[in-house]
């Protein structure tokens, strides 16, 4: 941050995108990560906090639209959310003061192993609207995370909104930390569309143990057409660890990471069972 010479706070999205169009620009959402950045490559900071149009949560076109500048506190306080797990996830993150500042866009763009919101968003089939001053594109969050936000999103692009399809489904999120303010050790989320007891479509995702949160397409596909039983839960939660490339973590042994993932996935599946 040391080379920043310009600090702007645009009042509209178009002018923000215009500002971001120049080299060396970086968007500032909540600032909780950027304020600690030691990077020397930025010369201009574009503060998005005046963009009220990005602070809305709306239901439109059979989908939930969440502005990128919606804070975790805001997300945690939504009444009658169609996805209670969004509230659960948002309120589980860090501490009050940080939830007040961190934003949906920021949580996605960070691209680190210890984020929680993307785990839930992956399970919910979230689409991300990326805009620059001249064009926009909507991509699946999973696509961004299959790459890396820092690679996938161009430097002049901004996450402005996310879309979550409204669908009759059940969903669940579980995470494990040692204290409230601990970085996540392991987390899992799931969403299932069922016909009676039979799974029609299901997404399982995990976080905390891989470089980035990710979906588990293999075990998810194995569940389609089946009923979730205790045997299936045991089988899937064991099986899924084979699909995961665990990253070394000085806080936990790989064996312990595995056992936690197993527990988190089991708990998610138990919720989806009912």
């Amino acid at each position, binding site marked *: *941050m*040391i080379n*920043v010479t310009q600090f702007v706070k645009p009042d509209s999205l178009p002018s923000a995108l215009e500002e971001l169009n120049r080299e060396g620009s970086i968007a500032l959402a909540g600032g*909780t990560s950027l304020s600690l950045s030691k990077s020397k490559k930025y010369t201009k900071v574009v503060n998005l906090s005046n963009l009220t149009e990005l602070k809305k949560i709306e239901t439109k076109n059979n989908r939930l639209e969440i502005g990128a500048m919606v804070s975790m506190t805001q997300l945690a306080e939504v009444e009658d959310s169609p996805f209670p797990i969004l509230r659960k996830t948002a309120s589980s993150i860090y501490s*009050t*003061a*940080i939830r007040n500042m961190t934003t949906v866009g920021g949580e996605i763009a960070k691209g680190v192993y210890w984020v929680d919101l993307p785990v839930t968003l992956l399970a919910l089939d979230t689409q991300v609207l990326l805009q620059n001053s001249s064009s926009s594109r909507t991509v699946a969050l999973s696509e961004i995370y299959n790459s890396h936000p820092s690679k996938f999103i161009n430097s002049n692009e901004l996450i402005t909104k996310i879309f979550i399809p409204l669908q009759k489904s059940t969903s669940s999120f579980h995470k494990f930390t040692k204290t409230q*303010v601990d970085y996540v050790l392991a987390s899992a989320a799931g969403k299932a569309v069922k016909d009676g007891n039979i799974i029609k479509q299901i997404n399982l995702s995990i976080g905390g143990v891989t470089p980035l949160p990710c979906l588990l397409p293999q075990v998810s596909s194995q569940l389609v057409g089946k009923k979730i039983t205790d045997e299936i839960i045991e089988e899937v939660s064991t099986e899924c660890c084979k699909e995961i490339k665990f990253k070394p973590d000085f806080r936990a042994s790989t064996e312990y990471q595995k056992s936690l993932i197993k527990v988190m996935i089991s708990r998610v599946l138990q919720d989806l069972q009912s």
Partner: protein
Amino acid sequence: MIKVSLTVNGKKHEKETAPDTSLLDFLRSIGVKSVKKGCGKGECGACGVIMDGVYCKSCIVLAIQANGTEIKTVESLGNAQNPHPLQTSFVDEGAVQCGYCIPSMLLAAKNMLDKNPEPDEKEIRKSLDGNLCRCTGYVKQIAAVKKAAKIMRENKNDQ
């Protein structure tokens, strides 16, 4: 260097600062010493301020990010002669030991009570979740917030 201009407890301040200066370091450099540095990384919670109505950790807010904002620190609550009910309750309940975490914790409680005047114990605990205290075990602080909330509700009813 970038010029930062902001209001602290109603008083305007303006100063040139390096672009990577945190709001915490900026505030301390202009003489606001009630905002404490316990880690500088957003982990301990001793540096909390209310910025434009939002409680945040000033060590992970850039000073330039706070340009044009209204900052409130513990001095905005009250002083020794005219303390805020939260300050009175913290003092009377024995919630203050070494005191290092207290100014920020008072602001966290204030910010929560502004939104939720009748919190239960769980909500109080949650509102203090980012304010580490090593002395008290949080017991008396939770009791003090509960007591202050009651006093504030009564004061409001009296008006």
